[in-house]
């Protein structure tokens, strides 16, 4: 399998605080790669650098075989899309679902708007009745489905997920995670999932990087984590905390 994303020597600083320190990892095409760590460990910052939202980084990022600069070409955005943490903040409050989904199609002049929107909504399990609603008429889970539909309407091969379930009710979390794993299977997506919750990462990802204070302290396969075959004490702590909060990871 080829590599979808290769990162090496990635550093990000905001002013005097050095948030991401010399991070490197590789994600193979079609793989699901998880990044876990507590808040402030720099995991979301990596995602924002990958997506091109944050332009102040140094190091090397290669996506889809192309070395990425700070500014990305339009074609990049058809290849890589992102789903944000808070579905209450990631949908424009004054645009209907229809307008939100039509926007990427219009930007890339893809045409055939109606069919694309209907299909994108069907793909995330929303019927046509949702198409002309405003975000305030949707529940959190429905909003996150719309956000996923918006990311997928450009038919990207790589999907970046920034804590896609942490703002949702526990009952909805599983629903959204199942949707994501179905979509991944159906479309052969490469996923990069960032979360503070090992159970969530375990649900989707085969390989996990554990971050602490801006560094990746350990990279392990899901099997290794499940069997407790891990080197770092920090990972063990994280695992224990996650088990306490959500039950055994194998239940996921």
């Amino acid at each position, binding site marked *: 399998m080829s590599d979808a994303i290769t990162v090496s020597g990635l550093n990000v600083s905001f002013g005097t605080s050095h948030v991401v320190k010399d991070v490197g990892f590789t994600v193979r095409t079609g793989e699901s790669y998880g990044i876990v760590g507590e808040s402030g460990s720099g995991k979301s910052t990596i995602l924002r650098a990958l997506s091109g939202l944050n332009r102040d980084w140094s190091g090397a990022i290669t996506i889809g075989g192309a070395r990425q600069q700070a500014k990305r070409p339009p074609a990049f955005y058809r290849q890589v899309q992102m789903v944000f943490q808070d579905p209450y903040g990631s949908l424009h409050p004054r645009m209907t679902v229809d307008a939100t989904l039509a926007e990427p199609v219009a*930007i890339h002049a893809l045409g055939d708007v109606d069919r694309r929107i209907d299909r994108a909504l069907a793909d995330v399990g929303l019927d046509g009745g949702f198409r002309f609603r405003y975000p305030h008429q949707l529940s959190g889970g429905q909003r996150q489905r719309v956000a996923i539909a918006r990311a997928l309407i450009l038919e990207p091969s790589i999907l970046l997920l920034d804590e896609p379930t942490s703002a949702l009710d526990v009952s909805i979390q599983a629903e959204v995670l199942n949707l994501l794993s179905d979509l991944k299977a159906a479309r052969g997506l490469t996923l990069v999932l960032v979360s503070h919750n090992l159970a969530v990462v375990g649900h989707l990802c085969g390989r996990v990087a554990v971050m602490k204070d801006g560094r990746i302290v350990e990279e392990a396969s899901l099997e290794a984590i499940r069997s407790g075959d891990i080197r770092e004490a920090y990972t063990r702590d994280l695992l224990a905390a996650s088990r306490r909060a959500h039950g055994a990871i194998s239940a996921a």
Partner: protein
Amino acid sequence: MSNLYAYLTSEAPVSRGQARLAQAYRRWLALKANPLALVGLAIVVLLLLAAALAPVIATHDPLAQNLDQRLLAPSAKHWFGTDALGRDIFSRIVHGTRVTLVIVLLVVISVGPIGLLIGTVAGYFGGWVDRVLMRITDIFLAFPRLVLALAFVAVLGPGIENACIAIALTAWPPYARVARAETMVVRNSDYIAAVRLQGASNTRIVLKHIMPVCIPSLIVRTTLDMAGIILTAAGLGFLGLGAQPPMPEWGAMIANGREYIFDQWWVATFPGLAICLVALGFNLLGDGLRDVLDAR
């Protein structure tokens, strides 16, 4: 009727048009729940009707002088009395609504877009663009509105068009500031990040995604500001720098009645009441709109 209600309150609209109508209907319901806003709306509608139907409503020709009948007290024939040239004050006030509306509309049409554009561009791009645009705004803000308007009219010459230009030049800075503040709030929101991730250009983001967020607060600001605009226009008219005689402008009418204010109170009082009422109407409506449009 119940069909229409179901259509407007449907939780699952089936077209863009229905979604928009339903949104408007929800806002109307919210506005309807506020009696003061309805009073404001009624006054503004009255103003619009009076302006549209001025020739029908007016009992006399607003410009016809009749020196035999000068300074008559209010009576059945002249409801608000007559002025120093024997013109019917009621008719002049009714026709004056047109002048007032023209001034308000000209100012709003020119001020809104300028303030919106400068504010959103400054707020979105930040850095030196922001600094340059905001310092220019500050310079205009530093002058009291009427004084700056006076200076412009002195240069451009008196007249209603120049009064409008003068008011517009002094009225845009607060709009730019409001728009900039709103823009700074939403600039780093996830939904703007999401369109950026779709490859949208800066122009597209500002025009299609940031401006719609700023427009409601600008509408509120404009409605609240209309009272001030009307007062400034009346002030310029009072000073003889706005509308020129014999045009029935309310500020100029007050100025004409000033000499007779103790003996013939009606000459200055009725145009004054008209200004008061219209300014109050716009203020009440603006307050109501703020509650309706800001609710998210």
